[in-house]
């Protein structure tokens, strides 16, 4: 478990540097120690994040199958419901249902491919320079 390390490590590091009688320690020293702790915690956080991503990478095939199938069915279902609603409102039966069912099918496939990490998210196609998003995040869910 990476969590244990994430919690315990910074404290282990901090205790030796903790001066026993530091009542008179000035704010600068305190600030610099807080900064150091922040850095350590940051390093820990990114490290444990990476560990977790790796740990979850071979997630169970069953879980993945279930996730993709709900993604797919939800796409088709929403498409069909939209088409049916449009037909009911505009009286264009059955064309709305036909067209939106097909669009929903496409959306379902798109959902599945996104879940599988084979297609990028709509907004992220041309963003190699985006700050915080790990590029291969999609594979490990």
């Amino acid at each position, binding site marked *: 478990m990476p*969590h*244990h390390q*994430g*919690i315990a490590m910074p*404290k282990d590091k901090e205790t030796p540097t903790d001066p026993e009688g530091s009542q008179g320690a000035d704010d600068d020293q305190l600030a610099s120690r807080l900064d150091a702790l922040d850095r350590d915690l940051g390093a820990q*956080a990114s490290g*444990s*994040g990476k560990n*977790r*991503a790796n740990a979850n990478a071979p997630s169970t095939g069953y*879980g993945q199958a*279930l*996730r993709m199938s*709900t*993604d797919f*069915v*939800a*796409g088709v*279902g*929403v*498409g069909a419901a*939209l088409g049916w609603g449009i037909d009911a409102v505009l009286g264009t039966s059955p064309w709305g249902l036909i067209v*939106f069912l097909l*669009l*929903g099918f*496409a*959306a*379902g496939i*798109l*959902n599945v491919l*996104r879940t599988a990490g084979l297609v990028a*998210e*709509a*907004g*992220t*196609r*041309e*963003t190699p320079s*985006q*700050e*915080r*998003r*790990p590029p291969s*995040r999609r594979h490990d*869910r």
Partner: protein
Amino acid sequence: MANDPIKQFEISKLVPLEIGGLDVSFTNSSLFMVATVAAASSLLILSTSGRGLVPTRWQSVAEMSYEFVASTLRSSAGNEGMRFFPMVFSLFMFVLIANLLGMFPYFFTVTSHIIVTFALAMLVIGTVVLYGFYRHGAKFLGLFVPHGVPAPLIPLVTAIEVISFLSRPISLAVRLFANMLAGHITLKVFTGFIVSLSALGFGGVLTSILPLVMAVAITALEFLVAFLQAYVFTVLTCMYLNDALHPNH
């Protein structure tokens, strides 16, 4: 028949109430939602009251759940996403505790009703849409228009993207609900086999060891699923919030 596998999901009114023609009775589902919130709050309040530098067991449970949600949110939505931390953490704790409470015999599983999970999913998507429009205005719609698509294809691709977006709350809700429902039904069916087999005499009792082993294994699996589904719900929430924060770049 005592082992009807669907009976455990029945809603029963504990305190019938009606306000303005609307049925707002306090049901067993409401009772367990209240219990979930109470359990989650008291777990966190009591476990963090000590605030030791070296955490006790309970304190480190609370710290672990905090660290876990915070790092999930940071890694998928960036530091900006931390403004949604209270919501994401509450959702995670609610789903997790509700799933775990459902593992007690005779307890009601709140998350095995699709209306509950759908309400949670709509809360997430509602936040994404409202915050997206509040923050980016009409630019939020750029989420639906991918870059680098030939102009004649844009209407088609946009329609597909919109349907794909609308299907998110559905798949979010269905995934949690279906996992909890299916797991509890399977458990009930297998334990039902034990009862009916052991009524068949000595041979039946011997054979009933098989479903018993299965029931034990499924119970363990259900605990895993309870955690996993809370995790998946949280991760997807974070991803969708990321869309609200950075719709297009």
